[in-house]
């Protein structure tokens, strides 16, 4: 059997294990190790198993994972979501659909500190949903705007999705963060316009909340200014080349803990829970990364990625068609798979094709994350919908029934990002380092 055929069998074996419910990291380790033994012999495979788990983990870049996770978890456990929603509500809640727009804006702001989509949906579900119900908002609109708004979490930095993409493709995480910033803001604008149009045509969907005076608006900033300043400090530092993403993560986590301590929101149990969750998620990523790199080593000796790239180029179809196919593939995959699993499993095969087609890898990172975001709210397995349903007791069917205008908005947004790569690449190209 030719090495590339072994590579294809290895991919098949790994997918079989994954669909049978084996941990993704284990499936990649087993398939990679067995495949390597077949192609290069036991001694070399054994060496790989001794080098990859250490060399991939002893990484300064990977160290930003626990730091950003800690920052996000501290922030989400200390009730900042409520303050963000309250502030956004005071500023824009009085227009038609204003509470839903305020929720989207608050989701964007929360994403800027938290970096996790499901955490954003869960936190906002507890805070914003009861408020919208109180003002007789349509249940579908109220729940769907939270589920959709939560997806912004992995687009606006800090984002775990971009860290993983950067690690697997050896791209600058700082540049990826910057690349996600404008698309994230644009996503908030797209959602806000969608809500406004819906409520304009059918005002009963989202009645206006009572108006607030300017003093109230200013006063509402009291609970959020410190965290927003921290975000600007962290991201501004990366943009200006003052900090590395790992340093920014450490400063962000330290700042979030300090602010929460000063505002007396961080209890001992909150802090202990934050660090425990951080350790658990870090270990989960460690197994995934180790599995991914062992599997990538196997794929490299099988030459399957190179063969696939040559095959795609040999088809002589316009590169735009290849891109559209990849986007459709990720949109479908996002409906069924966890973003991290999908990224780690597909990038070793897809990324060489993107590179050989001449697309910018930073821009593609944004497109990929955007595609996976859409999967978070689409049936049958939209993660955010299930998270929101469990945190707010809204039936899954109701939320899925309301997400379609947001999915359409997502498609329009994605199309814009594909047609105008400058939106994603403007900030990375302006970065000092």
């Amino acid at each position, binding site marked *: 059997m030719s090495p590339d055929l072994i590579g294809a069998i290895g991919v098949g074996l790994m997918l079989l294990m*994954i669909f049978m419910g084996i941990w993704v990291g284990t499936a990649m380790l087993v398939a990679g190790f067995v495949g390597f033994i077949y192609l290069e012999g036991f001694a070399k495979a*054994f060496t790989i198993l*001794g080098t990859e788990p250490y060399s991939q983990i002893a990484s*300064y870049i990977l*160290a930003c994972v626990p730091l950003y996770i800690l920052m996000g978890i501290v922030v989400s456990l200390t009730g900042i979501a409520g303050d963000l929603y309250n502030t956004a509500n005071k500023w824009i809640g009085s227009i038609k659909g204003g509470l839903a727009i305020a929720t989207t804006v608050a989701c964007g702001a929360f994403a800027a500190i938290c970096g996790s989509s499901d955490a954003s949906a869960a936190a906002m579900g507890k805070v914003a949903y009861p408020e919208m119900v109180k003002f007789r908002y349509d249940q579908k609109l109220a729940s769907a705007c939270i589920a959709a708004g939560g997806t912004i979490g992995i687009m606006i930095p800090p984002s775990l999705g971009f860290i993983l993409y950067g690690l697997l493709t050896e791209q600058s995480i700082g540049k990826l963060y910057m690349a996600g910033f404008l698309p994230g803001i644009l996503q908030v604008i797209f959602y806000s316009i969608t809500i406004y149009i819906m409520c304009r045509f059918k005002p009963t969907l989202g009645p206006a909340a009572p108006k607030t005076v300017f003093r109230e608006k200013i006063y509402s900033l009291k609970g959020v200014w410190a965290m927003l300043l921290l975000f600007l400090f962290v991201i501004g530092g990366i943009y200006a080349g*003052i900090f590395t993403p790992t340093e920014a993560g450490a400063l962000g986590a330290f700042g979030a803990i300090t602010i929460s301590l000063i505002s007396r929101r961080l209890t001992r149990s909150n802090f202990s829970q934050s660090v425990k969750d951080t*350790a658990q998620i*870090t270990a*989960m990523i460690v197994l995934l990364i180790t599995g991914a790199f062992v599997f990538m080593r196997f794929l490299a000796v099988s030459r399957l990625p190179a063969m696939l790239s040559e095959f795609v180029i040999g088809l002589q179809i316009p590169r735009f068609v290849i891109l559209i196919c990849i986007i459709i593939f990720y949109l479908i995959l996002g409906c069924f*798979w966890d973003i991290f699993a999908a990224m780690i499993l597909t990038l070793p095969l897809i990324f060489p094709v993107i590179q050989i087609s001449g697309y910018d890898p930073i821009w593609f990172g944004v497109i990929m994350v955007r595609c996976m975001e859409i999967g978070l709210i689409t049936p049958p397995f939209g993660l955010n919908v299930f998270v929101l349903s469990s945190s707010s007791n809204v039936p899954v069917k109701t939320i899925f029934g309301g997400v379609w205008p947001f999915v359409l908005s997502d498609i329009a947004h994605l199309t814009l990002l594909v047609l105008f790569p400058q939106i994603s690449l403007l900030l990375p190209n302006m970065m000092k380092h």
Partner: protein
Amino acid sequence: MSKKFTPAKVSMGIIDIVSFVSLMTIVVMMMLTTADVILRYLFDRPILGSMEMTELLMVSVAGLSLAWCTLKSGHIRVDIITNMFSKKTNKTIDVINYILTGIICAFIVPALINRYIEGEKLDIRTYVLRIPEGPFVLLLTFGYFLTFLVLIVKTVKSIVEEKK
């Protein structure tokens, strides 16, 4: 009353201690990097070798929290198809999962020990602080060994529950 110490209880006790150390390591990593940035920009006195210390601390976090994450079954799995299976089938899949992960850990542990021995022969150290890499390789090995123990306990527990 005399407390009965079973191997499973001892393993779990060790994991509790190890996971606590891992939590502390995350905090140390954060403090070290923050202090480095503050000292560099405010006092022009960066901490020498902070980058490699962070790398070594990352290995420590990984090694020390892996068993704990496995104990909590915190690893990513795709359950689209398995959700359709019966509870009993899912239990069987869990056992297969634990055994497969256990086998791979059983290969990783000696492979890492091998790397440690080779590293000691070559006296591999970090570039700036000249910290030997060996102890950290051993720490990661210990993490995988603990994970292996956790998986044995989980496998036995699942089989016993299934029989009941």
